[in-house]
């Protein structure tokens, strides 16, 4: 079977090198979210100009259009020959001048692609002249998938560049202020984490996507600490810690009760005051019992298109007494994910993990026909007979015990009213 080459059981996944290597990128719907464009445009009062070959622009334009960023996103088409000859610099400069002349935004991200990255095009002069002529901040970034896995991803770089708007702010620490970093769809003010923090006396909670303008964003410099909910934000948080003295704690979105408890313990330590979460945990565990019952004998699959780590969700489901059969993962592992894998291997060594990018997986559904529920649109791609629960980061951003219950209620809702994986991908645009 072609597909066998794409997977390995957790029992045998003892080193990163064991993970099945994808000789070519078979590409599934597994790379959703946090494109450079949407990351840049999280910063208030910013717009983004992308310059490059039209093929590269088209890829990013889909994401920008699907996410409703059309108004703040512009594209400048540059042929490869012009780039090689360096003839595009003048045109890009003029293009940005024209755009700036009719737009009010204070920050302009100039995003270039792999070709300029490879060529090492020097935009220093262009940016200096543009800043002088427009009075705007011009920030250079790259949408360069060719850099994946080698250094900070383009998304992380873009997110980290926000530091420049904080580093010069006067720093008067406010013990009742906390930053939440790494959210794209913001946490709701009526959500669990807000409630927990407020009950502990944290009055001012700030998230980048909720900042109305740069002035509000700059008040993130006042925070006593930062809570990092997504690895994307770790680099920014580290710089804020190192250069501004704002400590940070990495507490990514989780679904498992024990993991959530550990996250809250870490947050408690970071904010330096007790958090009252015992009742929340007790209530959630009780509510989960009933919700889990219907899933007891159902083989489950977890994909990597979910909001969070597939290994953490799998561990959560296993801890709830459920039967996780399959995980669809990516070739790269963050350190925190590898710890999750090691823990999960002890509990459920039978779970088979597939490299979702492996070309042998494409079009293969029969090996997964026994799966009853698939989490993530990528898992739903392969598990054609399963109920698909997307848990997309573009649906809602929840945290804590509320997130675990949301996952279970979403599962029940999908089982009662299934939406086809095709419709999730092609109509609801969860992927881009």
């Amino acid at each position, binding site marked *: 079977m072609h597909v066998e080459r794409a997977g390995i059981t957790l029992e045998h996944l003892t080193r990163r090198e064991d993970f099945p290597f994808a000789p070519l*990128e078979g590409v599934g719907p597994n790379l959703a979210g946090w494109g450079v464009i949407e990351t840049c445009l999280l910063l208030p009062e910013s717009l983004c100009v992308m310059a490059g070959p*039209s*093929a590269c622009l088209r890829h990013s334009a889909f994401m920008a259009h699907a996410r409703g960023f059309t108004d703040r996103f512009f594209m400048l088409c540059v042929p490869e020959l012009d780039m090689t000859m360096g003839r595009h610099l003048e045109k890009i400069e003029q293009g940005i001048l*024209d755009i700036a002349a009719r737009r009010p935004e204070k920050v302009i991200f100039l995003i270039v692609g792999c*070709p300029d990255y*490879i060529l090492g095009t020097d935009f220093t002069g262009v940016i200096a002249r543009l800043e002088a002529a427009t009075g705007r901040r011009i920030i250079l970034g790259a949408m360069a998938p060719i850099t994946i896995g080698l250094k900070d991803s383009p998304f992380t770089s873009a997110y980290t560049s926000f530091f420049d708007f904080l580093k010069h702010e006067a720093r008067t620490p406010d013990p009742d202020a906390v930053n939440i970093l790494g959210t794209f769809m913001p946490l709701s003010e009526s959500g669990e984490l807000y409630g927990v923090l407020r009950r502990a006396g944290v009055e001012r909670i700030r998230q980048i996507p909720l900042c109305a303008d740069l002035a509000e964003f700059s008040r993130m410099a006042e925070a006593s600490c930062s809570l990092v909910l997504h690895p994307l934000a770790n680099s920014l948080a580290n710089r804020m810690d190192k250069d501004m003295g704002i400590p940070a704690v990495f507490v990514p979105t989780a679904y498992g009760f024990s993991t959530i408890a550990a996250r809250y313990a870490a947050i408690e330590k970071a904010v330096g005051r007790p958090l009252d979460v015992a009742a929340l945990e007790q209530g959630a565990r009780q509510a989960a019992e009933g919700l889990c019952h219907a899933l007891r004998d159902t083989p489950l699959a977890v994909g990597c298109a979910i909001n969070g780590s597939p290994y953490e969700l799998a561990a959560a489901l296993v801890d709830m007494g459920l039967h996780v059969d399959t995980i669809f993962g990516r070739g790269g592992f963050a350190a925190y994910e590898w710890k999750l894998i090691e823990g999960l291997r002890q509990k459920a060594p039978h779970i088979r993990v597939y490299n979702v990018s492996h070309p042998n997986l*494409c*079009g293969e559904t029969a090996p997964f026909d026994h799966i009853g529920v698939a989490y993530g649109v990528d898992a739903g791609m392969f598990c054609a007979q399963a109920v698909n629960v997307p848990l997309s980061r573009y649906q809602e951003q929840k945290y804590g015990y509320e997130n675990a219950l949301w996952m279970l209620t979403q599962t029940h809702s999908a089982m009662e009213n299934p939406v086809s994986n095709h419709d999730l991908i092609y109509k609801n645009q969860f992927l881009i």
Partner: protein
Amino acid sequence: MKLYHKLLPLATGYFGVSSALYAFDGLVVVYGPAGGAWHINIEDEPRWYRGPATVVGAGLLEMDVILGNDDTFINNIATVSMQLERRFVALAGTPISEIIGTDLKGFSRTLESRTSRPVFMVPTAGSEPYPEGAAKAFLALARKFMVQPEATRKNGINVLGAIHLSTGKEEHIEPLLSAIEQAGYSLVSVFSVPRPGQADPLSAIRQAPEAQRNVVVSTSGLALADHMFAAYGIPYVVGMPVGLRGRDDFFALLRGEAVTPAPAPVGSPPCRHALVIGEPVLGYGLKRCLRLDFGVPEVDVVSVTPAQALYQSAPGCLGTLVERGPRDVCTDSEQDIEALMNDPAVDCVIADPCYAALLTRPTRFIPMPHIAMSARLNWDLPYEYAVDKGYDYLAGQFSGTPQP
């Protein structure tokens, strides 16, 4: 330099390669980072969903470019193509290979000798219009697989240029294919719509030179038509027959007859001045339908991909439904198209729904998805263009409530 804001840049060369070769059970390796191939599958190649992985990425990374890990890539491509038992391998270039000068032709030769399978490269880059990539892919396919015919099939027809980026889902071109068969012709091959009962999709390519006529339904098929006339002496007709008169004229051309002047349609026209935006062969088919079936007095065509070759006489061309008007233009400039759409004289626009974002005034807008523009965003929209169904669709639009 082109500026896009409300529109998407159109699909480019290697998207065209993917579209042209998808149905032939090969493996198309896009020589670039993973992201490029990923987006083709997810956005521009909706047929990929739970289907074969025709397009895969080379997964190129920075150090590969710096160090030149060619052997690794050749090994990987050979491994995958053998494991997946594909009928051929096609290598498509990207901006990366264009800039660093990757020898994809050399890759092809090495791969062919190593795998004993047909391997060819298509010289694409990333800025060219998609029909160019599709046309190059068709030519590569023809040179690789077509064989000299022993005999000509009477009334045998090849349909060239039916790539999904231009003609959409198979169901939209199917009325034309059915009409061709009902008119007494047999379809030898359709590039690139698989025909029922073909165990080996490449057999149609091999047999294509047996056809008596070629039909070119998008600009992507023109170069192949010229090649097949030069190599096999097969003449061709250019046109996408839209509506009733278009259907009749198309078959007249196929029979080698002259198109006769049409009587004016009865009744008042549904609009005075229509603007058709999109792929040029379909655009001119729509123009004929609007003028000859509906009596619209003014119809201008905006060809968003190069159309010059359509206006030039070619020795193999028997006839064409392309009739260029004085105000027809060829441009994909967002600013120019916006100005044309908002001309006060224009009271009807037929275009992909993405273009509606450029309208600054209320005007009748008839959706005609162009997959090279909107990809999966409008893939499932209900619309028709070919022969009678195209007429019915437009008639329904004209009789319905105008869209803002």
